[in-house]
Protein backbone atom coordinates (compact mmCIF):
# COMPACT_ATOMS: atom_id res chain seq x y z
CA UNK A 1 0.00 0.00 0.00
CA UNK A 2 2.62 2.59 0.95
CA UNK A 3 4.27 1.81 -2.35
CA UNK A 4 1.20 2.74 -4.30
CA UNK A 5 1.09 6.02 -2.51
CA UNK A 6 4.59 6.70 -3.69
CA UNK A 7 3.37 6.44 -7.21
CA UNK A 8 -0.05 7.98 -7.11
CA UNK A 9 0.49 9.97 -3.94
CA UNK A 10 0.48 13.69 -3.42
CA UNK A 11 4.05 14.10 -4.58
CA UNK A 12 3.38 12.84 -8.04
CA UNK A 13 0.16 14.73 -8.18
CA UNK A 14 1.89 17.88 -7.14
CA UNK A 15 4.46 17.30 -9.81
CA UNK A 16 1.72 17.08 -12.36
CA UNK A 17 -0.08 20.08 -10.87
CA UNK A 18 3.03 22.13 -11.10
CA UNK A 19 3.43 20.99 -14.60
CA UNK A 20 0.00 22.26 -15.61
CA UNK A 21 0.67 25.63 -14.08
CA UNK A 22 4.10 25.62 -15.57
CA UNK A 23 2.72 24.65 -18.91
CA UNK A 24 0.33 27.53 -18.87
CA UNK A 25 3.06 29.94 -17.86
CA UNK A 26 5.43 28.62 -20.48
CA UNK A 27 2.77 28.83 -23.14
CA UNK A 28 2.14 32.44 -22.29
CA UNK A 29 5.82 33.25 -22.17
CA UNK A 30 6.21 32.10 -25.71
CA UNK A 31 3.94 34.79 -27.04
CA UNK A 32 5.31 38.22 -27.72
CA UNK A 33 2.33 40.00 -26.21
CA UNK A 34 3.06 38.50 -22.85
CA UNK A 35 6.64 39.58 -22.92
CA UNK A 36 5.81 43.12 -23.97
CA UNK A 37 3.15 43.33 -21.31
CA UNK A 38 5.42 41.95 -18.63
CA UNK A 39 8.22 44.31 -19.53
CA UNK A 40 6.05 47.42 -19.50
CA UNK A 41 4.31 46.38 -16.34
CA UNK A 42 7.47 45.62 -14.40
CA UNK A 43 9.01 48.91 -15.47
CA UNK A 44 6.01 50.85 -14.27
CA UNK A 45 5.84 48.98 -10.99
CA UNK A 46 9.52 49.48 -10.28
CA UNK A 47 9.35 53.14 -11.18
CA UNK A 48 6.29 53.71 -9.04
CA UNK A 49 7.99 52.08 -6.08
CA UNK A 50 11.37 53.70 -6.39
CA UNK A 51 10.95 57.02 -8.11
CA UNK A 52 9.05 58.71 -5.24
CA UNK A 53 11.70 57.46 -2.86
CA UNK A 54 14.52 58.84 -4.95
CA UNK A 55 13.08 62.14 -6.07
CA UNK A 56 12.82 65.02 -3.67
CA UNK A 57 9.55 66.38 -5.04
CA UNK A 58 6.53 66.14 -2.76
CA UNK A 59 3.37 65.19 -4.66
CA UNK A 60 1.16 67.12 -2.29
CA UNK A 61 3.12 70.31 -2.01
CA UNK A 62 1.05 73.19 -3.26
CA UNK A 63 2.99 75.74 -5.28
CA UNK A 64 0.58 78.18 -6.84
CA UNK A 65 3.27 80.11 -8.62
CA UNK A 66 4.08 77.11 -10.77
CA UNK A 67 0.50 76.14 -11.51
CA UNK A 68 -0.54 74.84 -14.90
CA UNK A 69 2.96 74.39 -16.27
CA UNK A 70 2.87 72.37 -19.47
CA UNK A 71 4.95 69.22 -19.98
CA UNK A 72 8.39 69.26 -21.54
CA UNK A 73 8.51 70.60 -25.09
CA UNK A 74 4.88 71.70 -25.11
CA UNK A 75 3.53 75.22 -24.79
CA UNK A 76 5.57 77.91 -23.15
CA UNK A 77 7.41 78.09 -19.85
CA UNK A 78 7.91 74.33 -19.53
CA UNK A 79 10.73 73.23 -17.29
CA UNK A 80 12.74 70.07 -16.63
CA UNK A 81 11.90 70.16 -12.93
CA UNK A 82 8.36 69.23 -13.90
CA UNK A 83 8.80 66.96 -16.90
CA UNK A 84 5.12 66.18 -17.18
CA UNK A 85 3.88 69.56 -16.10
CA UNK A 86 2.01 70.66 -13.01
CA UNK A 87 -1.63 70.68 -12.08
CA UNK A 88 -3.93 73.52 -11.09
CA UNK A 89 -2.27 73.96 -7.69
CA UNK A 90 1.28 73.61 -8.91
CA UNK A 91 1.80 70.01 -7.84
CA UNK A 92 4.11 67.91 -9.99
CA UNK A 93 2.21 65.62 -12.39
CA UNK A 94 4.87 62.95 -12.76
CA UNK A 95 5.12 62.42 -9.03
CA UNK A 96 1.37 62.43 -8.57
CA UNK A 97 0.98 59.86 -11.31
CA UNK A 98 3.50 57.53 -9.71
CA UNK A 99 1.96 57.89 -6.28
CA UNK A 100 -1.43 57.35 -7.85
CA UNK A 101 -0.08 54.25 -9.55
CA UNK A 102 1.09 52.93 -6.19
CA UNK A 103 -2.40 53.27 -4.76
CA UNK A 104 -4.01 51.78 -7.85
CA UNK A 105 -1.71 48.78 -7.84
CA UNK A 106 -2.09 48.27 -4.13
CA UNK A 107 -5.85 48.45 -4.24
CA UNK A 108 -6.03 46.33 -7.38
CA UNK A 109 -3.81 43.57 -6.00
CA UNK A 110 -5.38 43.56 -2.55
CA UNK A 111 -8.83 43.41 -4.05
CA UNK A 112 -8.01 40.53 -6.34
CA UNK A 113 -6.41 38.63 -3.51
CA UNK A 114 -9.56 38.98 -1.46
CA UNK A 115 -11.68 37.93 -4.42
CA UNK A 116 -9.52 34.90 -5.02
CA UNK A 117 -9.41 33.95 -1.37
CA UNK A 118 -13.11 34.25 -0.74
CA UNK A 119 -14.20 32.93 -4.12
CA UNK A 120 -11.92 29.94 -4.17
CA UNK A 121 -12.70 28.96 -0.61
CA UNK A 122 -16.41 29.12 -1.25
CA UNK A 123 -16.08 27.27 -4.52
CA UNK A 124 -13.80 24.67 -2.98
CA UNK A 125 -16.18 24.01 -0.13
CA UNK A 126 -19.24 23.89 -2.32
CA UNK A 127 -17.63 21.74 -4.96
CA UNK A 128 -16.17 19.27 -2.55
CA UNK A 129 -19.11 18.86 -0.22
CA UNK A 130 -21.81 18.92 -2.75
CA UNK A 131 -25.39 18.43 -1.69
CA UNK A 132 -27.01 20.98 0.55
CA UNK A 133 -23.83 22.98 1.20
CA UNK A 134 -23.38 23.27 -2.51
CA UNK A 135 -26.92 24.43 -3.17
CA UNK A 136 -26.88 27.05 -0.45
CA UNK A 137 -23.51 28.42 -1.37
CA UNK A 138 -24.36 28.53 -5.04
CA UNK A 139 -27.63 30.31 -4.42
CA UNK A 140 -25.73 32.93 -2.44
CA UNK A 141 -23.30 33.22 -5.30
CA UNK A 142 -26.08 33.62 -7.81
CA UNK A 143 -27.76 36.26 -5.70
CA UNK A 144 -24.52 38.17 -5.43
CA UNK A 145 -24.08 37.95 -9.19
CA UNK A 146 -27.48 39.51 -9.66
CA UNK A 147 -26.78 42.46 -7.47
CA UNK A 148 -25.72 45.35 -9.60
CA UNK A 149 -22.41 45.74 -7.85
CA UNK A 150 -21.77 49.19 -9.03
CA UNK A 151 -24.94 50.36 -7.35
CA UNK A 152 -23.99 48.60 -4.15
CA UNK A 153 -20.54 50.12 -4.33
CA UNK A 154 -21.69 53.65 -4.83
CA UNK A 155 -24.45 53.22 -2.29
CA UNK A 156 -22.02 52.06 0.38
CA UNK A 157 -19.27 54.47 -0.48
CA UNK A 158 -21.60 57.32 -1.23
CA UNK A 159 -23.28 57.42 2.12
CA UNK A 160 -20.25 56.88 4.29
CA UNK A 161 -16.89 58.43 3.71
CA UNK A 162 -14.79 56.08 1.61
CA UNK A 163 -11.62 54.80 3.26
CA UNK A 164 -9.14 52.51 1.57
CA UNK A 165 -10.14 49.36 3.50
CA UNK A 166 -13.79 50.05 2.70
CA UNK A 167 -13.01 50.47 -0.99
CA UNK A 168 -11.00 47.25 -1.11
CA UNK A 169 -13.77 45.40 0.67
CA UNK A 170 -16.49 46.65 -1.62
CA UNK A 171 -14.51 45.99 -4.79
CA UNK A 172 -13.48 42.56 -3.56
CA UNK A 173 -17.05 41.62 -2.79
CA UNK A 174 -18.03 42.49 -6.32
CA UNK A 175 -15.88 39.91 -8.00
CA UNK A 176 -15.71 36.74 -5.93
CA UNK A 177 -18.80 34.95 -7.34
CA UNK A 178 -17.12 34.28 -10.67
CA UNK A 179 -14.18 32.64 -8.97
CA UNK A 180 -16.46 30.64 -6.75
CA UNK A 181 -18.28 29.27 -9.75
CA UNK A 182 -15.16 28.40 -11.70
CA UNK A 183 -13.50 26.84 -8.67
CA UNK A 184 -16.58 24.82 -7.93
CA UNK A 185 -16.81 23.32 -11.39
CA UNK A 186 -13.11 22.48 -11.43
CA UNK A 187 -13.29 20.91 -7.99
CA UNK A 188 -16.38 18.94 -8.88
CA UNK A 189 -14.56 17.46 -11.82
CA UNK A 190 -11.43 16.67 -9.88
CA UNK A 191 -12.98 15.24 -6.77
CA UNK A 192 -14.20 12.21 -8.56
CA UNK A 193 -10.69 11.27 -9.48
CA UNK A 194 -8.81 8.29 -8.15
CA UNK A 195 -6.33 10.10 -6.03
CA UNK A 196 -9.01 11.75 -4.00
CA UNK A 197 -10.80 8.52 -3.38
CA UNK A 198 -7.52 6.96 -2.49
CA UNK A 199 -6.77 9.62 0.02
CA UNK A 200 -10.20 9.27 1.59
CA UNK A 201 -9.75 5.56 2.00
CA UNK A 202 -6.44 6.17 3.65
CA UNK A 203 -8.18 8.28 6.21
CA UNK A 204 -7.21 11.75 5.11
CA UNK A 205 -9.59 14.32 6.58
CA UNK A 206 -11.73 16.45 4.31
CA UNK A 207 -9.74 19.56 5.15
CA UNK A 208 -6.52 17.87 4.29
CA UNK A 209 -7.84 16.70 0.97
CA UNK A 210 -9.25 20.12 0.13
CA UNK A 211 -6.26 22.17 1.08
CA UNK A 212 -3.35 19.94 0.40
CA UNK A 213 -4.57 18.07 -2.63
CA UNK A 214 -7.20 19.94 -4.51
CA UNK A 215 -6.28 23.56 -3.89
CA UNK A 216 -2.74 23.41 -5.28
CA UNK A 217 -4.12 21.66 -8.31
CA UNK A 218 -7.01 23.93 -9.12
CA UNK A 219 -5.82 27.31 -7.99
CA UNK A 220 -2.92 28.23 -10.28
CA UNK A 221 -4.81 28.23 -13.59
CA UNK A 222 -7.51 30.41 -12.08
CA UNK A 223 -5.00 32.66 -10.42
CA UNK A 224 -3.23 33.33 -13.66
CA UNK A 225 -6.30 34.67 -15.30
CA UNK A 226 -6.90 36.82 -12.24
CA UNK A 227 -4.31 39.12 -13.75
CA UNK A 228 -7.08 40.42 -15.99
CA UNK A 229 -9.14 41.15 -12.95
CA UNK A 230 -6.39 43.30 -11.46
CA UNK A 231 -6.83 45.53 -14.47
CA UNK A 232 -10.58 45.49 -14.05
CA UNK A 233 -10.34 46.45 -10.40
CA UNK A 234 -7.95 49.29 -11.14
CA UNK A 235 -10.46 50.68 -13.59
CA UNK A 236 -13.31 50.19 -11.16
CA UNK A 237 -11.43 52.08 -8.48
CA UNK A 238 -10.63 54.86 -10.94
CA UNK A 239 -14.28 55.15 -11.88
CA UNK A 240 -15.20 55.45 -8.21
CA UNK A 241 -12.50 58.06 -7.77
CA UNK A 242 -13.78 59.93 -10.77
CA UNK A 243 -17.25 60.07 -9.27
CA UNK A 244 -15.76 61.33 -6.05
CA UNK A 245 -16.39 58.10 -4.16
CA UNK A 246 -12.91 56.67 -4.18
CA UNK A 247 -9.81 57.60 -2.27
CA UNK A 248 -10.33 61.17 -1.15
CA UNK A 249 -8.22 64.16 -2.11
CA UNK A 250 -5.55 65.37 -1.54
CA UNK A 251 -4.27 61.79 -1.92
CA UNK A 252 -3.67 61.45 -5.65
CA UNK A 253 -5.27 58.56 -7.49
CA UNK A 254 -5.92 58.37 -11.21
CA UNK A 255 -9.64 58.74 -10.75
CA UNK A 256 -9.60 61.98 -8.86
CA UNK A 257 -6.71 63.52 -10.83
CA UNK A 258 -8.63 62.95 -14.06
CA UNK A 259 -11.84 64.22 -12.50
CA UNK A 260 -10.09 67.43 -11.48
CA UNK A 261 -8.37 67.64 -14.82
CA UNK A 262 -11.67 67.52 -16.65
CA UNK A 263 -12.26 71.16 -15.81
CA UNK A 264 -9.02 72.18 -17.40
CA UNK A 265 -9.17 70.07 -20.51
CA UNK A 266 -9.34 73.06 -22.83
CA UNK A 267 -6.44 75.04 -21.34
CA UNK A 268 -4.30 72.47 -19.56
CA UNK A 269 -5.01 69.23 -21.37
CA UNK A 270 -2.12 67.41 -19.69
CA UNK A 271 -3.76 67.26 -16.25
CA UNK A 272 -6.35 64.79 -17.52
CA UNK A 273 -4.35 63.25 -20.35
CA UNK A 274 -1.12 62.26 -18.58
CA UNK A 275 -2.79 60.14 -15.87
CA UNK A 276 -4.99 58.69 -18.58
CA UNK A 277 -1.91 57.57 -20.49
CA UNK A 278 -0.34 56.09 -17.34
CA UNK A 279 -3.54 54.26 -16.61
CA UNK A 280 -3.77 53.06 -20.18
CA UNK A 281 -0.21 51.72 -20.21
CA UNK A 282 -0.68 49.89 -16.92
CA UNK A 283 -3.95 48.39 -17.97
CA UNK A 284 -2.76 47.50 -21.46
CA UNK A 285 0.26 45.67 -20.12
CA UNK A 286 -1.88 43.81 -17.58
CA UNK A 287 -4.43 42.95 -20.21
CA UNK A 288 -1.84 41.73 -22.67
CA UNK A 289 -0.37 39.49 -20.03
CA UNK A 290 -3.75 38.29 -18.92
CA UNK A 291 -4.98 37.62 -22.43
CA UNK A 292 -1.84 35.68 -23.26
CA UNK A 293 -2.24 33.62 -20.09
CA UNK A 294 -5.86 32.95 -20.85
CA UNK A 295 -5.12 31.76 -24.34
CA UNK A 296 -2.35 29.59 -23.08
CA UNK A 297 -4.67 28.09 -20.49
CA UNK A 298 -7.29 27.41 -23.12
CA UNK A 299 -4.73 25.69 -25.22
CA UNK A 300 -3.42 23.57 -22.34
CA UNK A 301 -6.87 22.48 -21.30
CA UNK A 302 -7.89 22.01 -24.89
CA UNK A 303 -5.08 19.56 -25.18
CA UNK A 304 -3.09 21.38 -27.78
CA UNK A 305 -0.04 22.31 -25.67
Amino acid at each position, binding site marked *: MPNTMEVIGPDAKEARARTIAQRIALGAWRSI*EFRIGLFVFTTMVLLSIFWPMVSAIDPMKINIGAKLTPPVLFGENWTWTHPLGTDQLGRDMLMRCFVGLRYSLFIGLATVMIMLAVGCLVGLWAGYRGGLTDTILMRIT*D*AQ*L*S*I*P*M*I*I*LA*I*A*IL*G*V*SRPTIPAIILVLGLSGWPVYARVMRSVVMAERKREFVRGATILGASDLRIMFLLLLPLCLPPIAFVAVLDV*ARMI*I*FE*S*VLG*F*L*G*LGVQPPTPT*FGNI*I*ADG*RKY*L*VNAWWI*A*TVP*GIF*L*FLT*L*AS*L*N*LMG*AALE*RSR*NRVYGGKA
Partner: protein
Amino acid sequence: MFLVNFLIRRLAQGAVIVLLVSFLIFTLLRVVPGDPVRLIVGGMAPDALVEQIAEEMGLRDPIPVQFFRYMSGVVQGDMGQSFIRPASGAAVGGASFDDNTRSERANVLDLIADTAPYTLQLAVLAMVFALVIALPIGIYGGLKPGKWPDRFALYIGSLLISLPNFWLGIVLALVVSVNLGWLPAIGYQGFSYTILPAIVLAVEIAPFLIRTLTVSVAQNMGESYISVAAIRGISHRRIVMAHALKNSSVPLLNLLGVQFSMLLGGVLVVEFIFDYPGLGLLTINAVLQRDFPLIQGIAIVTSAAFVMINIVVDLIATTIDPRLDY
Protein backbone atom coordinates in the same frame (compact mmCIF):
# COMPACT_ATOMS: atom_id res chain seq x y z
CA MET B 1 -44.57 22.20 -20.49
CA PHE B 2 -40.87 22.63 -20.21
CA LEU B 3 -41.33 26.28 -20.87
CA VAL B 4 -43.82 26.74 -18.10
CA ASN B 5 -41.69 24.79 -15.68
CA PHE B 6 -38.67 26.76 -16.60
CA LEU B 7 -40.42 30.09 -16.27
CA ILE B 8 -41.96 29.30 -12.92
CA ARG B 9 -38.70 28.10 -11.49
CA ARG B 10 -36.67 31.00 -12.75
CA LEU B 11 -39.22 33.62 -11.82
CA ALA B 12 -39.44 32.26 -8.32
CA GLN B 13 -35.66 32.30 -7.99
CA GLY B 14 -35.65 35.77 -9.45
CA ALA B 15 -38.16 37.02 -6.92
CA VAL B 16 -36.05 35.68 -4.09
CA ILE B 17 -33.00 37.38 -5.51
CA VAL B 18 -34.72 40.72 -5.92
CA LEU B 19 -36.00 40.46 -2.39
CA LEU B 20 -32.54 39.74 -1.11
CA VAL B 21 -31.05 42.67 -2.96
CA SER B 22 -33.67 45.09 -1.71
CA PHE B 23 -33.24 43.93 1.84
CA LEU B 24 -29.51 44.35 1.58
CA ILE B 25 -29.67 47.86 0.25
CA PHE B 26 -32.49 48.77 2.60
CA THR B 27 -30.54 47.69 5.65
CA LEU B 28 -27.40 49.33 4.36
CA LEU B 29 -29.05 52.67 4.00
CA ARG B 30 -30.52 52.50 7.45
CA VAL B 31 -27.31 51.45 9.05
CA VAL B 32 -24.76 53.85 7.64
CA PRO B 33 -24.12 57.13 9.40
CA GLY B 34 -26.34 60.02 8.47
CA ASP B 35 -29.88 60.13 9.69
CA PRO B 36 -32.37 59.92 6.81
CA VAL B 37 -34.92 61.84 8.83
CA ARG B 38 -32.60 64.81 8.87
CA LEU B 39 -32.65 64.80 5.12
CA ILE B 40 -36.42 64.83 4.94
CA VAL B 41 -36.89 67.36 7.65
CA GLY B 42 -34.06 69.61 6.64
CA GLY B 43 -31.03 71.30 8.07
CA MET B 44 -32.29 73.53 10.78
CA ALA B 45 -34.69 71.35 12.75
CA PRO B 46 -34.17 70.89 16.48
CA ASP B 47 -33.47 67.34 17.55
CA ALA B 48 -36.75 66.91 19.39
CA LEU B 49 -38.68 67.60 16.22
CA VAL B 50 -36.52 65.17 14.30
CA GLU B 51 -37.35 62.40 16.76
CA GLN B 52 -41.02 63.19 16.63
CA ILE B 53 -41.17 63.09 12.86
CA ALA B 54 -39.09 59.94 12.81
CA GLU B 55 -41.60 58.22 15.10
CA GLU B 56 -44.49 59.39 12.96
CA MET B 57 -42.88 58.13 9.79
CA GLY B 58 -42.10 54.82 11.39
CA LEU B 59 -38.38 55.25 10.88
CA ARG B 60 -37.58 54.17 14.42
CA ASP B 61 -39.20 50.77 14.08
CA PRO B 62 -36.99 47.69 13.78
CA ILE B 63 -35.58 47.18 10.32
CA PRO B 64 -37.53 44.05 9.34
CA VAL B 65 -40.78 45.83 10.15
CA GLN B 66 -39.82 48.83 8.06
CA PHE B 67 -38.75 46.56 5.25
CA PHE B 68 -42.00 44.64 5.28
CA ARG B 69 -43.94 47.88 5.09
CA TYR B 70 -41.77 49.09 2.24
CA MET B 71 -42.10 45.88 0.23
CA SER B 72 -45.85 45.76 0.63
CA GLY B 73 -45.86 49.25 -0.83
CA VAL B 74 -43.62 48.18 -3.69
CA VAL B 75 -45.84 45.27 -4.61
CA GLN B 76 -48.68 47.72 -4.99
CA GLY B 77 -46.55 49.94 -7.16
CA ASP B 78 -45.61 52.57 -4.62
CA MET B 79 -41.90 52.93 -4.16
CA GLY B 80 -42.13 55.81 -1.82
CA GLN B 81 -41.14 59.37 -2.39
CA SER B 82 -37.80 60.95 -2.97
CA PHE B 83 -36.26 62.71 0.01
CA ILE B 84 -34.89 65.52 -2.00
CA ARG B 85 -36.75 66.08 -5.20
CA PRO B 86 -40.11 67.82 -5.16
CA ALA B 87 -42.86 66.81 -7.53
CA SER B 88 -41.31 68.84 -10.32
CA GLY B 89 -38.24 66.63 -10.25
CA ALA B 90 -35.79 69.46 -9.55
CA ALA B 91 -32.80 69.04 -7.28
CA VAL B 92 -33.42 71.34 -4.32
CA GLY B 93 -31.92 72.14 -0.98
CA GLY B 94 -31.62 74.89 1.58
CA ALA B 95 -35.22 75.38 2.60
CA SER B 96 -36.24 75.70 6.21
CA PHE B 97 -37.09 72.69 8.32
CA ASP B 98 -40.72 73.47 8.82
CA ASP B 99 -41.16 74.27 5.17
CA ASN B 100 -44.51 72.84 4.13
CA THR B 101 -43.50 72.19 0.56
CA ARG B 102 -41.24 69.45 1.82
CA SER B 103 -44.17 67.07 1.96
CA GLU B 104 -44.93 67.00 -1.75
CA ARG B 105 -42.00 65.03 -3.01
CA ALA B 106 -41.67 63.27 -6.31
CA ASN B 107 -42.68 59.63 -6.62
CA VAL B 108 -39.69 57.37 -6.98
CA LEU B 109 -41.47 55.28 -9.57
CA ASP B 110 -42.21 58.37 -11.67
CA LEU B 111 -38.62 59.55 -11.53
CA ILE B 112 -37.39 56.13 -12.62
CA ALA B 113 -40.01 55.73 -15.34
CA ASP B 114 -39.10 59.12 -16.77
CA THR B 115 -35.43 58.36 -17.10
CA ALA B 116 -35.39 54.66 -17.94
CA PRO B 117 -36.36 55.01 -21.63
CA TYR B 118 -33.37 57.26 -22.24
CA THR B 119 -31.00 54.72 -20.76
CA LEU B 120 -32.64 51.97 -22.72
CA GLN B 121 -32.12 53.89 -25.92
CA LEU B 122 -28.50 54.46 -25.02
CA ALA B 123 -27.92 50.81 -24.13
CA VAL B 124 -29.45 49.47 -27.30
CA LEU B 125 -27.52 51.87 -29.50
CA ALA B 126 -24.32 51.00 -27.66
CA MET B 127 -24.95 47.30 -28.22
CA VAL B 128 -25.51 47.92 -31.90
CA PHE B 129 -22.26 49.87 -32.19
CA ALA B 130 -20.40 47.22 -30.21
CA LEU B 131 -21.66 44.45 -32.45
CA VAL B 132 -20.73 46.46 -35.53
CA ILE B 133 -17.19 46.72 -34.21
CA ALA B 134 -16.89 43.27 -32.70
CA LEU B 135 -18.53 40.99 -35.24
CA PRO B 136 -16.15 41.49 -38.16
CA ILE B 137 -13.02 41.50 -36.01
CA GLY B 138 -14.09 38.60 -33.84
CA ILE B 139 -15.34 36.31 -36.57
CA TYR B 140 -12.39 36.92 -38.84
CA GLY B 141 -10.03 36.37 -35.94
CA GLY B 142 -11.78 33.17 -35.03
CA LEU B 143 -11.63 31.86 -38.56
CA LYS B 144 -7.87 32.15 -38.69
CA PRO B 145 -6.61 31.25 -35.21
CA GLY B 146 -2.98 31.98 -34.61
CA LYS B 147 -2.60 34.08 -37.74
CA TRP B 148 -2.57 37.85 -37.89
CA PRO B 149 -6.35 38.43 -37.78
CA ASP B 150 -6.34 36.58 -34.50
CA ARG B 151 -3.45 38.58 -33.11
CA PHE B 152 -5.10 41.72 -34.38
CA ALA B 153 -8.23 40.80 -32.48
CA LEU B 154 -6.15 40.28 -29.37
CA TYR B 155 -4.40 43.61 -29.66
CA ILE B 156 -7.53 45.57 -30.45
CA GLY B 157 -9.33 43.86 -27.61
CA SER B 158 -6.61 44.67 -25.11
CA LEU B 159 -6.33 48.20 -26.40
CA LEU B 160 -10.01 48.95 -26.14
CA ILE B 161 -10.34 47.39 -22.75
CA SER B 162 -7.48 49.44 -21.39
CA LEU B 163 -8.97 52.76 -22.42
CA PRO B 164 -10.58 54.17 -19.28
CA ASN B 165 -14.13 54.94 -20.34
CA PHE B 166 -14.41 58.16 -18.42
CA TRP B 167 -11.21 59.44 -19.93
CA LEU B 168 -12.31 58.49 -23.41
CA GLY B 169 -15.65 60.19 -22.82
CA ILE B 170 -14.05 63.43 -21.74
CA VAL B 171 -11.61 63.48 -24.63
CA LEU B 172 -14.27 62.63 -27.21
CA ALA B 173 -16.63 65.25 -25.80
CA LEU B 174 -13.95 67.86 -26.18
CA VAL B 175 -12.53 66.84 -29.54
CA VAL B 176 -15.58 65.65 -31.43
CA SER B 177 -18.16 67.98 -30.00
CA VAL B 178 -16.44 71.20 -29.10
CA ASN B 179 -13.48 71.35 -31.43
CA LEU B 180 -14.86 69.61 -34.49
CA GLY B 181 -18.55 70.23 -33.92
CA TRP B 182 -19.63 66.94 -35.49
CA LEU B 183 -21.88 65.66 -32.74
CA PRO B 184 -23.62 67.26 -29.78
CA ALA B 185 -22.51 66.14 -26.37
CA ILE B 186 -24.32 67.63 -23.41
CA GLY B 187 -27.81 66.82 -22.24
CA TYR B 188 -30.57 65.56 -24.46
CA GLN B 189 -32.39 67.45 -27.15
CA GLY B 190 -32.80 64.92 -29.86
CA PHE B 191 -31.69 61.46 -30.87
CA SER B 192 -28.28 62.68 -31.98
CA TYR B 193 -27.34 63.30 -28.35
CA THR B 194 -27.27 59.55 -27.82
CA ILE B 195 -24.59 58.85 -30.40
CA LEU B 196 -21.46 60.05 -28.64
CA PRO B 197 -22.28 58.40 -25.29
CA ALA B 198 -23.18 55.20 -27.13
CA ILE B 199 -19.81 55.16 -28.87
CA VAL B 200 -17.99 55.43 -25.56
CA LEU B 201 -20.08 52.59 -24.13
CA ALA B 202 -19.56 50.48 -27.20
CA VAL B 203 -15.79 50.82 -26.90
CA GLU B 204 -16.14 49.41 -23.41
CA ILE B 205 -18.22 46.38 -24.37
CA ALA B 206 -16.63 45.48 -27.69
CA PRO B 207 -13.45 43.80 -26.31
CA PHE B 208 -15.45 41.17 -24.47
CA LEU B 209 -17.52 40.42 -27.51
CA ILE B 210 -14.39 40.16 -29.64
CA ARG B 211 -12.73 37.80 -27.23
CA THR B 212 -15.73 35.54 -26.85
CA LEU B 213 -16.32 35.46 -30.56
CA THR B 214 -12.76 34.55 -31.48
CA VAL B 215 -12.65 31.78 -28.93
CA SER B 216 -16.02 30.39 -29.75
CA VAL B 217 -15.69 30.61 -33.53
CA ALA B 218 -12.25 29.04 -33.39
CA GLN B 219 -13.58 26.27 -31.19
CA ASN B 220 -16.50 25.61 -33.46
CA MET B 221 -14.45 25.60 -36.61
CA GLY B 222 -12.29 22.95 -35.03
CA GLU B 223 -15.24 20.64 -34.49
CA SER B 224 -15.51 17.55 -36.59
CA TYR B 225 -18.85 18.42 -38.14
CA ILE B 226 -17.28 21.40 -39.83
CA SER B 227 -14.55 19.39 -41.47
CA VAL B 228 -17.11 16.79 -42.45
CA ALA B 229 -19.25 19.48 -43.97
CA ALA B 230 -16.34 20.59 -46.12
CA ILE B 231 -15.94 17.05 -47.36
CA ARG B 232 -19.62 16.94 -48.17
CA GLY B 233 -19.00 19.78 -50.55
CA ILE B 234 -20.76 22.59 -48.73
CA SER B 235 -19.17 25.93 -49.59
CA HIS B 236 -16.97 27.57 -47.01
CA ARG B 237 -19.19 30.57 -46.85
CA ARG B 238 -22.25 28.50 -46.10
CA ILE B 239 -20.39 26.51 -43.48
CA VAL B 240 -19.45 29.62 -41.65
CA MET B 241 -22.68 31.51 -41.98
CA ALA B 242 -25.23 28.79 -41.55
CA HIS B 243 -23.53 26.43 -39.16
CA ALA B 244 -20.55 27.76 -37.26
CA LEU B 245 -21.99 31.15 -36.50
CA LYS B 246 -25.22 29.81 -35.16
CA ASN B 247 -23.44 27.59 -32.70
CA SER B 248 -20.95 30.25 -31.75
CA SER B 249 -23.72 32.61 -30.87
CA VAL B 250 -24.68 30.75 -27.73
CA PRO B 251 -21.73 31.91 -25.63
CA LEU B 252 -22.27 35.30 -27.15
CA LEU B 253 -25.82 35.39 -25.90
CA ASN B 254 -24.68 34.35 -22.49
CA LEU B 255 -22.18 37.11 -22.63
CA LEU B 256 -24.83 39.63 -23.57
CA GLY B 257 -26.62 38.77 -20.38
CA VAL B 258 -23.50 39.28 -18.31
CA GLN B 259 -22.68 42.41 -20.26
CA PHE B 260 -25.60 44.17 -18.72
CA SER B 261 -23.87 44.38 -15.39
CA MET B 262 -20.86 45.88 -17.09
CA LEU B 263 -23.11 48.13 -19.08
CA LEU B 264 -24.64 49.54 -15.93
CA GLY B 265 -21.30 50.62 -14.56
CA GLY B 266 -20.38 52.19 -17.86
CA VAL B 267 -23.77 53.87 -18.18
CA LEU B 268 -23.32 55.61 -14.83
CA VAL B 269 -20.06 57.20 -15.81
CA VAL B 270 -21.01 57.99 -19.39
CA GLU B 271 -24.30 59.63 -18.47
CA PHE B 272 -22.50 61.63 -15.80
CA ILE B 273 -19.93 62.97 -18.22
CA PHE B 274 -22.39 63.77 -20.98
CA ASP B 275 -25.12 65.00 -18.63
CA TYR B 276 -27.41 62.50 -20.36
CA PRO B 277 -30.72 62.41 -18.47
CA GLY B 278 -30.96 58.67 -17.97
CA LEU B 279 -31.13 56.24 -15.11
CA GLY B 280 -27.37 56.43 -14.54
CA LEU B 281 -27.34 60.16 -13.93
CA LEU B 282 -30.36 59.77 -11.68
CA THR B 283 -28.51 57.13 -9.66
CA ILE B 284 -25.40 59.23 -9.26
CA ASN B 285 -27.35 62.28 -8.23
CA ALA B 286 -29.37 60.17 -5.83
CA VAL B 287 -26.22 58.88 -4.18
CA LEU B 288 -24.51 62.26 -4.07
CA GLN B 289 -27.64 63.79 -2.59
CA ARG B 290 -28.25 60.91 -0.16
CA ASP B 291 -31.69 60.30 -1.60
CA PHE B 292 -32.29 56.91 -0.02
CA PRO B 293 -35.74 56.00 -1.34
CA LEU B 294 -34.55 56.73 -4.84
CA ILE B 295 -31.43 54.59 -4.41
CA GLN B 296 -33.56 51.74 -3.11
CA GLY B 297 -36.02 52.05 -5.94
CA ILE B 298 -33.28 52.02 -8.55
CA ALA B 299 -31.64 49.01 -6.91
CA ILE B 300 -34.88 47.05 -7.03
CA VAL B 301 -35.61 48.03 -10.61
CA THR B 302 -32.12 47.17 -11.83
CA SER B 303 -31.92 43.80 -10.13
CA ALA B 304 -35.35 42.95 -11.44
CA ALA B 305 -34.12 43.95 -14.90
CA PHE B 306 -31.04 41.72 -14.54
CA VAL B 307 -33.12 38.77 -13.52
CA MET B 308 -35.49 39.25 -16.45
CA ILE B 309 -32.65 39.67 -18.91
CA ASN B 310 -30.93 36.55 -17.69
CA ILE B 311 -34.15 34.58 -17.96
CA VAL B 312 -34.75 35.82 -21.49
CA VAL B 313 -31.18 35.09 -22.52
CA ASP B 314 -31.33 31.58 -21.13
CA LEU B 315 -34.65 31.01 -22.87
CA ILE B 316 -33.28 32.07 -26.24
CA ALA B 317 -30.15 30.00 -25.67
CA THR B 318 -32.24 26.91 -25.01
CA THR B 319 -34.19 27.53 -28.17
CA ILE B 320 -31.05 27.77 -30.27
CA ASP B 321 -29.29 24.88 -28.61
CA PRO B 322 -31.66 22.24 -27.28
CA ARG B 323 -28.81 20.42 -25.59
CA LEU B 324 -28.61 23.06 -22.94
CA ASP B 325 -30.55 22.50 -19.79
CA TYR B 326 -31.50 25.36 -17.62
